[in-house]
Each structure stands twice: as structure tokens, then as C-alpha cells.
């Protein structure tokens, strides 16, 4: 089986167009996120969240009235998987689970109320977890930058990190926007964080594969124009990219469709992140290195590229 025979697609020729597209998209998504705000899940916001199941579907308004009348503030009701499963959230954290279950039993005497799960997070824990998440991502980025700078030239490390930041910011803001638009239920919680970190790993992984090929081709085709060299490397790894992304997406789509409410958010973030990660390895990471050499280092790409990305002396 073979999809491409000696592909020779000019990926980088249109790099400016894609860079402009990416920047526009980032600005748009960041703006929307800033205006609409981020909806933090219970893990980061603190409060109580109770998932309940009734025997038959009931109106969410009735649930809201019942729970609010029990004296709880900031009540939100969402659906949780099935038609008859609801997620009830309140800012209180004291004895909210009991209050909610009592209120529901009273309001719906004919329904059997089953508590599916309870999450009760004190306000301190919430802010701690937020800080933890922030440090985890920051530290991961720094460690990768160090590793890549050590394995490749420093500017390649920076290129990989630029692509990574592109992926993380876009994935995050797209997720937040989708949630704000009410298309999917994607609040920022611990499993979304895990997914974001996986995107971090994947994004770098993908970029590394292409950079690895550039490093190798540089030796094989000494003196080749850097843009051509990068394009050749992207083409040579294209088959791998398609197959790996394809199998990973296959796995993620089955998780998204069959994984139930708990895995769904995780899978969706990964799907967005992996598509973006593949795209950014080609158009952002390589384009950044080209831009840096052209504009900052003022290197003639026809002749002088070796001074910048030259192989370290053995």
C-alpha cells in the first residue's frame, strides 16, 4: 500500500499565507476568549458539582428551581451524557451534596434520584490546582526547549517552541470558544489539562521528526537552498505524518464517539491539538526558522545556511 510516490509538494511556498492565517485565527480566538471569559470546571473554580440520574427525563428548569429553593447560590444545570442525567453545580462547598439530593427527592417524589458522582473542591485547592497546571505547562516547555537546543541548533528549539505555543494557545482558545458557543461541553478541568499536556508532547514530537530529517538531509545534500531542504524533508516524512496522524485520529475518534462523557472532552481536545500540531510542524516551526534566518540573521538562504544550522563539530 502506498499513498505518495516521491511526493514533491511545495509546502513552504505558501508559508506566508498560512502564517497570516494562523496569526489571524489566534487573534480572533484570543479576543473571543478574553471577551467571553474562560469557564473553569469545578477542579479549578472550587465549589460543588453533583451528577444525578432520574428515572425519566425532567425539565432542567424544575431542577434549578428545586435546588435554588434549597438556598444554594450560583446554581447551574447541565446535561451529563444521557437525557436523564444532569450535572448540578453550585458555588457552595459546605454540605451542598446533601442539600441537593434532599431538594431533588422532595421536588420529584416520583423519580428515583441516583447520585452518579460528587466533586467538592475547596476554594484553596482550586487555586492551587490552577497554579499547578500553569507550572506544569511552563516547566514542560522549558525542559523541552533545553533538550531540543541540546539536540539541534538553538534556533530549532525556539522554532519548535513557537509552534508549540501556537498549538497550545489555539487549542485552548478554540476549546473555550466551542464551549462558550455551546457547541460542546468543554470546561477547563483536570482532564482537559491532561489533554493539553498531551498536545504539548505531540506537537513537539511532530516537529522533531521533521527537524530530524532536515538535520540528516543537510549532510546528504550539502549546499542546498534551505527552503528546498526543508520542503524535501517535509515531503520525505509525509507518508509517516499521514499514517501516524491517521492512526492516532482513528483511536481518538473512537474515544470521542464511544468513550462516554468523561473521556469525550479529553478526546476532542486531543483531536484539535493533533491536527494543529501536524499543521504547525510544517507551517509554523519550519516557517519560523526560515523567517529567522532570512530576516534576523540576514543570511542568504542560497549559500549561507550552514553557518546557522551547521552540524555541531564531531
Amino acid at each position, binding site marked *: *500500500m*502506498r499513498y505518495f510516490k516521491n511526493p514533491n509538494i511545495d509546502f513552504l511556498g505558501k508559508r506566508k499565507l498560512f502564517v497570516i492565517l494562523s496569526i489571524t485565527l489566534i487573534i480572533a480566538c484570543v479576543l473571543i476568549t478574553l471577551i467571553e471569559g474562560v469557564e473553569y470546571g469545578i477542579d479549578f473554580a472550587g465549589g460543588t458539582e453533583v*451528577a444525578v*440520574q432520574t428515572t425519566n427525563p425532567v425539565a432542567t428548569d424544575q431542577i434549578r428551581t428545586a435546588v435554588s429553593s434549597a438556598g444554594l447560590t450560583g446554581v447551574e444545570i447541565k446535561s451529563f*451524557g444521557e437525557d436523564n442525567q444532569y450535572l448540578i453545580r453550585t458555588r457552595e462547598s459546605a454540605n451542598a*451534596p*446533601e442539600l441537593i439530593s434532599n431538594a431533588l427527592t422532595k421536588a420529584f417524589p416520583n423519580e428515583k434520584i*441516583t*447520585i*452518579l*458522582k*460528587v*466533586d*467538592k*473542591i*475547596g*476554594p*484553596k*485547592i482550586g487555586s*492551587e490546582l490552577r497554579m*499547578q497546571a500553569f507550572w*506544569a505547562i511552563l*516547566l*514542560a516547555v522549558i525542559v*523541552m526547549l533545553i*533538550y531540543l537546543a541540546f*539536540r539541534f541548533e538553538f534556533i530549532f528549539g525556539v522554532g519548535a517552541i513557537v509552534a508549540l505555543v501556537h498549538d497550545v494557545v489555539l487549542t485552548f482558545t478554540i476549546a473555550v470558544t466551542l464551549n462558550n458557543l455551546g457547541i460542546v461541553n468543554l470546561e477547563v478541568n*483536570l*482532564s482537559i489539562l*491532561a489533554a493539553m*499536556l*498531551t498536545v*504539548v*508532547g*505531540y506537537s*513537539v*514530537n511532530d516537529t*522533531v521528526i521533521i527537524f*530530524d*530529517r532536515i538535520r540528516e538531509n543537510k549532510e546528504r545534500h550539502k549546499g542546498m537552498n534551505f527552503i528546498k531542504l526543508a520542503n524535501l524533508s517535509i515531503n*520525505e516524512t509525509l*507518508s*509517516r505524518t499521514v*499514517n*501516524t496522524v*491517521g*492512526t*492516532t485520529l*482513528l*483511536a481518538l475518534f*473512537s*474515544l470521542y*464517539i*464511544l*468513550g*462516554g462523557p*468523561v*473521556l469525550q472532552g*479529553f478526546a476532542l481536545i*486531543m483531536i484539535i491539538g493533533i491536527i494543529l500540531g501536524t499543521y504547525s510542524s510544517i507551517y509554523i516551526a519550519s516557517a519560523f526558522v526560515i523567517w529567522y534566518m532570512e530576516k534576523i540573521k540576514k543570511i542568504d538562504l542560497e549559500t549561507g545556511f550552514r553557518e546557522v544550522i551547521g552540524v555541531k563539530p564531531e
Partner: protein
Amino acid sequence: MKRYFGKILLVVVPVIAALVLLYPTYQASQLEQKERQAIAQAKKAGNSSDSLEIMEKFKKQYGEALKTAKARRLKLGLDLRGGMYVTMEVDVVKLIEESAQNETIDEIFKDVIAKTRKEASASDEPALNIFQRNFNNIARPQGKSLLNYFDVGDVREASEEKIIASLNESIDKAIDQAQEVIRQRIDQYGVSEPNIQKQGTRRIMLELPGVTNQDEMRSLLQTTARLEFKLVRNYKEIVQAFYKIDKLLSEQIKRGKGFATADPTTMLDTLKKDTTKLAQKSDTTKVDTTKGNQDTVKDPYAGLPPEEAQRRYALDHPFTTLFSTFFVPGKNQNIIPIYYTSDQFPEGEYIFRIPKDSIGKFQVLLNRPDVAALIPADLEIVIDAKPDTRIKQNQNIEIYDFYALKKEPELTGDVISSARASFDPTTNQPIVLMSMNTDGAESWARITGANLQKRIAIVLDNRVYSAPTVQSKITGGNSQITGMANAEEARLLEIVLNAGALKAPVQIIEERVVGPSLGDDSIRSGLNASLVAVILVVLYMIFYYGLGGAIADFAVILNVSLVLSVLAALGGTLTLPGIAGIILTVGMAVDANVLIFERIREELDHGRSMRSAIDEGFRKALSAIMDSNITTFFTGAILYYLGTGPIQGFALTLMLGILGTLFTAIVVTRAIIELLMAKGATSFDFGQPKIKSN
């Protein structure tokens, strides 16, 4: 063949390792199914003796195997099997408040505390620092010093620094006390496989599988502990009461009423037959702990064959065969086993020992109103908190002492001002030094004076931690407790005594409950989704890379099995994020194989022979595989160290998966390909278009 022996080993050894390590998981699930069947059968059985028989048969046949399998199997996290997850934190503000002397607390102090509480809930700064700052700002301008509120014992040596130092010490100790109290309560509540861990210096993390009654658990966790000193009354009157209980129960059995207890689950603790076994078990301890002296006991079963005698004795004494009874003739004399063959018992002190397995049944019986009525009204039966260390060390069985205690406590723990574990300088034995405040010391002198050579039990939360004998009248409030088996036991007693001095206040700061039905649902959908994902990936690889793809599939599945088996061997738990980590692993492992195969196909396109293309392919793909996996491994490691609970589960499987990927993709896949190429083959199906045939 010899040349390939090493390669065969590389393939076979990991497969066997994975099978061996995962077998207990399979076995446990099979046995649990059998257990469920047995319980269902037992419930259906017409009369109680039949159902007892069924359960007994199951226990005998599979009991041990199930226990070992359960210990070694891959454990599922709370999100997959349902249960309660709680994080508790020492409430430092409350601890400061409670450390102050009650009578001195005024409005100024209350102000300081209220302000501190408010600030502490929103800040990461140590609460004690916040308290000091607020105290300096509010109380000090009004002419107050810490000395006005806190008692540090000797007035001449009192200083503010000392008070702060002692508060700091209390805060540090509070977490140990809270952990001990909670551990004991969870034990008594009967949670199976609880996980209780200290997190940092202020927090305790609890995982309680299967617990769904959150209200009950919450109050259980947050009630403060009660420390009491109670007189031990292991005398003739309690032994006689036990004798009467035997009579009552054996008559009920003979009348056919059986032991039907209110709780249907105790059916598992089948009674009638068990007692025989227990009698034998108890007998071994008796023989081990005494030296002869059997002739003091008159034997009404004389003349019967030993086994028959034992069976008859057990039938006649359904209660007292649950434990062993010994008589203490005097100091430095061997203790004598006591049999309940007549109601004549010697005057003096007794010792009771009960094996761990019997405690549940023992307590169920004691709670029955008709049985409880036979125990003298001023006495209660209290069991040790821990099994006897020496017996556990020597014979590896868990035997607990239990005591008849005077219900009314002589003294409560709040009189203790401090307790410290130490060593006796002359004998080098572990000791605990305990001092009391002035009020306590006065009562203590009176109590010890009146009970010379008698035992006083130290009871925390209705469990006995130590029952030392009073050697002399203790005036001045400073006591020395000896007789601990080791330093660890002394340290535990120190924690317990301090728990009386200071009720370590803990509060729940995080609580997650997963209902059993959601657990089932998420297992089912998680498993289904993973299964479909794996099947799709497997088919795709064969579709694109032919035989090479099939080998890669084998390597990927081996990789997942290795991750699961290492997880089982490390005693880790598989959580939902953990499953996500495994799926990511599948992606990474596939990627590694894709990189290798693409490289091999490229080399073939360049006109290399199959054999050299394989060599080159593996060689050239290596740097890309290493770099990409190492960067992802870093992410996993950072997540593992910075993350908590669920995130850690994800990170752990991810890291294990990456190690597995490197091993299976680079080593195992290659070994298989080379074995298949061994007989001088010049072609191999990597899914490449078949232009060149050979």
C-alpha cells in the same frame, strides 16, 4: 538455531513476563465471579445450614487463591469502580484557637482568630505567620501578649518564642495524630482496601473504594478523637459472663435457632463450622504461649477421640472458642489457658486473645441484646488497636488482646500536657514519658494510688493502645510507660497520648464521590472505546504495512500488556486518565513502527537489498524515535511530579508506555523481523508495492 537464541529470548521473555504478571488479575476476576455465583446459590438455598455449607466450600476451595490474586491484581481507580476520594487538611487556625486556654479567651483574641481564619482561607502563607501578624496588629496595641493566652507549663521559663515553638510542634504532630485516628476509624468502619496517605506536611489523602454513604463517612472523618484512661477489669466476673453467653448460644443452636444475625452479609462468616476451625487455631496459640499445665483443667470430654472432643467442645462453647482465655497466676509465672468446662474460675487476672478473623463475629455477637445483657452493666469489652507485635513477629498471625474495661473513664485525655517517646537510659528499652497539667496530676496521683499493680487502659476512639500496670503511686503528673515491643510502638503511643492533649482538628478540603453505576458506565464505555480504537489501529497497520504491520501490531499489544503488568506489579491503580495515557502510548508506539517501516521502504526505493534496507531503516529511524519519545517522556515526568491523583495516573502510564515503546519497537519488532528473515529470505512484506519480485 543457536545464533537466533538470543533473539527468540528477546521476544519470548517479555511475553511470558506480561502473562505471569497479568495472570492474578485474570484469576481474581474469575474467582470473584465464582464467589458471586456461590453467594447467589447460598441465598437461594432453603435453609441456613445449606447456605453455610456452600459458602464454606467456596472459602475452603478458593479462599486463599482469591486473597493472593486480589493482592497482586491490577487495581482499578475510584473513577472506574466507584468510591470516595477525600483530601483532609489540618485546620491550623482551629488548632491555635484550641491550644489557647479556654478561660483566657476574650473578644480581642476572638478578633485575631476570625481575621486569621479569613486571610488563611485565601492565602498560601502559613496560618501561624498570619496569626502572629494579626496578633501583633490587633492584640498587642491593647497591651496583650501571647503569654496572656497560652500556657507553657513552667511560668519562670515562659516566653513568646517558646509558645510559638510549641505551636509549631503541635502543628507538625497534628497530621500524624489525625492520620492514626482516621486509619483506625476507617479500619473499624470496614472499608476494603483503603488507601490513606500523607500528602506533604498538612494533608491526608484517602481513597475509599466502595464507600457511597458520604454523610456517614464525612462525620466519621471529622469527629474529634476521644482519649480516656479506663481501669482494666479482666476478672472472674467477666469470665463467668462469657460462660453464660456460651450456655445461651449453645442452647439456641441446639433448639435450632442458629446464629441468624440481623445482617445478611454475615452469612459469609459462616458460623457453625468455622468455630471448629477457630478452636483449633486458638488451641495452637494456647500451646505456643504456655508450657504444659494442661492438667489443671478438668476435661469432661475425656475418653472421646481428640477430634471428636474438640468438635463437641466447640459446639458447646460457640462464643468462647472465638478467642483464647488465659489465667495469670501471679508475677513471673506462666499464664494458664482456661477452658470453659465448668463455671468455677480462679480469682485473679485474666488475659483474652482473639485472632483477627474472629473479631467481626465476636462483635456481632456482643452487640446482640440478649448477649449484651449478660455482660456486667458497668463493664464494656474493648479490643486492642493493633495485633500483638511479638506474636505477629514470632508466629506471623494477627492476634489481638481484648479487655473488660470499667465503662466510666478514670480520666480523659485533655489533662495530658505532653507525651514523648524515648529510651530508658539504663535498660535501653523504649518508653513513653507522659506529663499532665496540675488538675490531671492530682487525680492521677489518687487513681494510681488506689489501683497499685492493676492495669489502666489507654483508650482512643474505643480502641486500647496500651494497658500498662500501675507500679507505684504517681505524684507530680510525670509518668513513664514501659513494655512497648519496639520504638515504633512507643512512637504510636506518643501520637495517641498527644491526640488527647490536643484534638488535631482536620477539615475536608476536597471530596470526590463516584457512584457505582457511573463507575460501571465509565468502565464499559472506556473499555469499548479503547477496544474499538485498538482494532482500528491494528487493521490499518496491516492494511498499509502488510506483514510488517502485523508485527508492529504484536509489538504494540505487547507494549500495552507490559504497561498494565508493570502497573500491577508496582501496585499502581488504573484510572480513566490512565487509560487515556495508554491510548496515547498506542499512538506513540505505532508512530515508532511507522517511522521504521517508512524508512525501510525509502531505503528499498533507493535500491538497497531487503537485508541492508532493514538495517539502515532501523538505524536511521532511531534518532527521530528517541528524540520524539524523550521529549514526551519529559512531559510525563513533569506531570508526575507536579500533578496529583488523576494527572499522576495519566503521567505514569504515559512514561511506562514510552519505555515500552522504545523496547518493543526497536528491540522486539527487529528481533521478529530478523527471525523471519533468518532462513536466507531476501524479501519481506512491508506493504511496499511489489515491483521487484524475487
